[in-house]
């Protein structure tokens, strides 16, 4: 029994990989082959779909748009969450617990509820179809998450560290940047990773808030599906490419991912 226990994770990972494998093989097949015959392996191996995506601005701009708003959102979320998480982990203040719970409730708000009002709000302030709009909108669920994760990491740092630094004559900003932030570097990495991830995978709000100039890649995929018939090979290639940034990011933080949530307080 003990000897066979490696089987469970292996089977599970196979289950995870099969749909991804199917996507990858489709991206190397021509659309005719996908529709015409059932093959486990591409018979006419082609890179045309990838070439099309990487050379046609309609396609590759989608990736650039997504990366721009995801980056803005990640930087913004972590930057404002850092002092807030510090306040929650070190001080008690009027209404702190209510505030913390209220922040978390925003993580619970279904995006479908906010789609229409967001559209009107961002149109009204003239930010519709800009990267900033999506980056700001994603703050709704990313800031609470970042505060939550960072607070967990910060509570793990003993308070004596702060006090010693003040005695040594550090001002607060200098202490925070020079001493405190390096101490919770892995926490910042994890928070940034989760912000990146949730902003990258979210589509409903991103699609609602953009039309042309800032349209995310995932939305371009749905549009192309209806515009030029059903270009399955092209869609598969575009889908396969959307996995790449996430895979790169996860490689760098693989040892800290799980820790992020484990340390956060509920």
């Amino acid at each position, binding site marked *: 029994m003990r000897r066979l226990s490696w089987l469970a994770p292996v089977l599970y990972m196979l289950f995870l990989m099969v749909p991804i494998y*199917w996507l990858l093989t489709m991206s190397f097949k021509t659309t005719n082959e996908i529709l015409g015959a059932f093959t486990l392996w591409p018979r006419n191996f082609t890179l045309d779909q990838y070439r099309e995506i990487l050379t046609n601005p309609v396609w590759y701009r989608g990736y650039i748009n997504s990366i721009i708003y995801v980056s803005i959102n990640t930087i913004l979320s972590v930057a404002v*969450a850092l002092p807030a998480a*510090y306040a929650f982990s070190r001080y008690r203040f009027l209404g702190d617990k209510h505030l913390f719970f209220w922040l978390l409730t925003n993580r619970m708000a279904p995006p*479908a509820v906010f789609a229409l009002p967001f559209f009107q709000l961002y149109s009204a302030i003239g930010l519709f179809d800009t990267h900033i709009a999506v980056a700001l909108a994603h703050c709704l669920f990313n800031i609470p998450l970042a505060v939550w994760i960072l607070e967990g990491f910060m509570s793990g740092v003993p308070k004596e560290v702060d006090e010693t630094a003040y005695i040594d004559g550090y001002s607060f900003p200098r202490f925070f940047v020079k001493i405190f932030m390096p101490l919770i570097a892995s926490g910042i990495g994890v928070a940034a990773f989760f912000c990146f991830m949730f902003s990258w995978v979210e589509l409903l709000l991103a699609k609602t808030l953009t039309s042309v100039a800032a349209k995310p890649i995932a939305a371009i995929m749905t549009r192309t599906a209806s515009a030029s018939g059903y270009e399955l090979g092209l869609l598969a290639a575009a889908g396969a490419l959307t996995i790449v940034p996430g895979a790169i990011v996860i490689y760098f933080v693989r040892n800290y991912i799980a820790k992020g949530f484990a340390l956060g307080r509920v």
Partner: protein
Amino acid sequence: MDKTWNNKAWFMVLPVLVLVAFNAIIPLMTVVNYSVQETFGDNVFFFEGVKWFQQVVNSERFHAALLRQLTFTFTILAIEVPLGVAIALTMPRRGPWVSVCLVLMALPLLIPWNVVGAIWNIFALPDIGLLGRVLNGIGLDYNYTRQPEDAWFTLILMDVWHWTSLVVLLAYAGLSSIPDAFYQAAKIDGASRWAVFRYIQLPKMKRVLTIAVLLRFMDSFMIYTEPSVLTGGGPGNSTTLLSIDLVKVALGQFDLGPAAAMSIIYFLIVLLLSWIFYTLMMRNEERS
């Protein structure tokens, strides 16, 4: 850690407060505003009071969508949590395979949600999809675009594929915080595999599992993109979950009033259920 009372800490929270409030309170007020009014276009609105709320609460359509939503959420919780814990228990605890496992398992979490829907949409097609071909090949009559049961099966399988890894990662983090000495002590005492799980591993995982259940509950209750790409709520209305129904009403029919009332009820249900979960599990934790 004992914290000092300091109201100036408010200044450090202020940027967060402004940004989140801008995104949360203004749209929420807009929704509340619509929910009590009637419009015939041209930006002319009439006050309607609680009419829309009564209409939504009494509508069969809403009840059906809510029932489907609850069925979906509790089914995936019942599958993903035990499965995730089981996988985490059998994963290697050290060595080169740990990184491989973690990276591969986290992969589905990083795929944009509509791509997840698109992958499964094609993967499960009975004529050109691998899953559909295999299921039909072993003699099942499988077609998720026509038969409601098959649509449900595909939907749940997709969600298990997409999100079980989150439970695995969290449970694994909880497990790796157990010192080796615990296991050695259990071995000396001659504890059975089950006893080790029940009295050492499970208590250590309680905290992370609370987080996992809460996150999975909230996220599955809000799920929109994946099912809307996979089945679009069909065949018929058989997989129309709450948020899909909401978007159909709000953006499809442009019935702002009823859609807004439905949004608010929907949000309140999520809040209420999350709060119940949260208190129940916290109470459990305090008792043990």
